[in-house]
């Protein structure tokens, strides 16, 4: 099969040429540095190119939204990051932001407006679902048609922002074998990584949260556990390994499911 190289558009370069993309694609720290999640970033970028969406990334100018600092109590650091980003966005006249990380999504959407940064913030799950509904993204239901897929709700898409159905609708267009875990949607159990837990050891207890959640998933016997958050992915992938199920169960992001089904 023929391939084409993708030159990822960078905001500063476009701007220097006097071009302005419609969307800022905010990659996020996990999307930029986490080896596993970089694959998701790549998959989603392919989809953006496939859909001919006008976008650019900030590249080396991108920095943390401040979310983990804020949730760990460091409001000072959060606001420094926030004001820095808001200034940067202003300089590029950014109006619409697409995020793949639900934590970045939540921070931009709900928390930056208090500090003077109001944007149209779109989760990639919303964007993809919209393109599918409008018929602009045609998915080949063949590849995962008979694959048993379950979906783990990230807290910052679900409870935090009420995005429950979009990811499910996407998965259901890909497979006829979608299966819910017992705890789902607003009842979903956290993967254990939110609120800056990602960056520290858990407090003493009798179990790790990610194991508890992985067990929820294993109960419904999936071939794929779909996630939509970099932290959830780290936790669920660890859980699958802990349970020695990595031969049988894959943990894929929704963007990867789509890219794979389109053979991008």
């Amino acid at each position, binding site marked *: *099969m*023929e*391939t084409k*190289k*993708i030159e*990822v558009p*960078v905001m500063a370069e476009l701007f220097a040429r006097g071009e302005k993309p419609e969307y800022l694609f905010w*990659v996020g*720290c996990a999307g*930029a*540095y986490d080896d596993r999640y*970089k694959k998701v*970033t*790549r998959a989603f*970028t*392919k989809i953006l190119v496939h859909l001919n969406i006008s976008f650019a*990334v900030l*590249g*080396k100018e*991108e*920095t*943390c939204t401040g979310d983990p*600092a804020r*949730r*760990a*109590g*460091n*409001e*000072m*650091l959060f*606001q*420094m990051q926030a*004001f820095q980003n808001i200034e940067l966005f202003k300089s590029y006249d950014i109006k619409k932001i697409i995020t793949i990380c639900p934590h970045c999504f*939540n921070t931009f959407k*709900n*928390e930056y407006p208090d*500090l003077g940064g109001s944007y149209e913030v779109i989760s990639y799950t919303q964007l993809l679902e919209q393109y599918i509904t409008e018929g602009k993204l045609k998915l080949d239901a063949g590849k995962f048609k008979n694959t048993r897929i379950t979906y783990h709700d990230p*807290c910052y898409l679900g*409870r*935090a*922002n*009420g995005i429950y159905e979009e990811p499910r609708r996407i998965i259901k267009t890909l497979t006829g074998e979608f299966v819910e875990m017992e705890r789902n949607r607003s009842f*979903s*159990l*956290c993967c*254990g990584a939110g*609120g*800056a837990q990602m*960056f*520290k*050891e858990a*407090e*003493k*207890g*009798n*179990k*790790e*949260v990610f194991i*508890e959640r992985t067990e929820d998933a294993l109960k419904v016997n999936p071939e794929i556990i779909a996630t939509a958050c970099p932290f959830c992915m780290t936790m669920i992938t660890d859980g699958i390994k802990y349970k020695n199920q990595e031969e049988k169960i894959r943990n894929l992001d929704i963007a990867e499911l789509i890219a794979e089904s*389109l053979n991008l």
Partner: protein
Amino acid sequence: MTKQIVFALALLVTLVAFGFTITRIIRFFSLTRKGFPVKNIGKRIGIMLKVAFGQTKIFRRPIIGFLHAMVFWGFCLIIFGSIEMVIDGLFGLEKSLSVLGWFHDFIMAAGDIFAPIIAIAIVVFLIRRVFLHIKRFEGIEMKKISHLDANIALTLILLLMISLMGMNTAYVSWCHSLGKEIHGVYPVSQHLTGLFSSMPVEVIYTYYEVFWWSHILLIFLFANILPYSKHFHVFMSIPNVFLSRLEPLGKLPSMESITREVKLMLDPNAAFAAPPSDTPIERFGVKDAEDVVWKSYFDSLSCTECGRCTSVCPANLTGKRLSPRKVMMDLRARMKEKGPLMLKNGRDYSDGKSLIRDYISEEELWACTTCNACAQECPININHPTLIVDMRRYLVMEEGSAPGEIKAMFNNIENNGAPWQYSPEDRLNWANNLEINIQ
């Protein structure tokens, strides 16, 4: 006339005692922080109708939620009967609201039907608490006194319902014996009159009087016990739902004091432009009961310790010490301890203790994933995560205290703009050699 005087005195004692308690609690609120402006009244009324009167969130657990809803709706209807009793008692009348015609029939019938339903629900609740040892009612914060508190309140409600049924039955029997017109409709009690059938009319009337007085005096007693009990919930929960946070659960409130500082740091010129601040220097975050925003204290007073929050908390489920219910109970207990001393000795009073550490340990605070399951589950929209983060804010910004890895994460964000130790130069490495298949 004697009856009226006794009643008026009882009512007066009730109101004075209640007024005293409420004034005291309002003074505790004066110690807390401002913030959380109450806007958007229309939307708030909508939420109140749905979540409080519609009991939507309690139905997240359908079976036991249904029983609670029955108790709640029953209370809402029975209260009209209680108002009638107060009017009757004060003015020496009998069934004074019967002037309302069909509405009176309706509220009497509703009370008569709901009383036994509530009684059954309460018996189920008591069985669950006393015999079944439901996990949700256990935990480090659930001391003997917490269980006693619950059981006393439930027993009082049961007695209220029994006295109401007794009153209705005796009333119907008494009317029957005298051939009097019955005011109101009593669909359940009218079938129980057999209990009084062989008694002389005066005895039946005495029973009626005894039940009537027991019922109203129990209400007076109940009203005055509630503010000292977790069942203060009965008064506080509807207003608390009205005062719900209207923002998405994911949003944390911004600290304006920090915004001022950060703006000064980013633009030193603003220092000259900034008007002199006349607000006293506030502590960052929450260390003690008086540091909370008033709404958090309101939350804590509304909490009835049902434990739905804790039962869905990922940290608690996996054996960590954190329990969102405990956070609310601790705030309430700490205010009860420190509030009176502060009111007496002034705002700066310190008893050498604080909410953090003496009540809530750092270990508990750092175990929270801010997943918002607790806030989602709370039937009356209490918000625990904002309070937990407020306490982390104190620890981090006032004491510089945080787990080592968290401090490292802060350093990384400050130095490299990412929570991990990677160079900003590598931010775009993911895009290297990216190719797309051409279909």
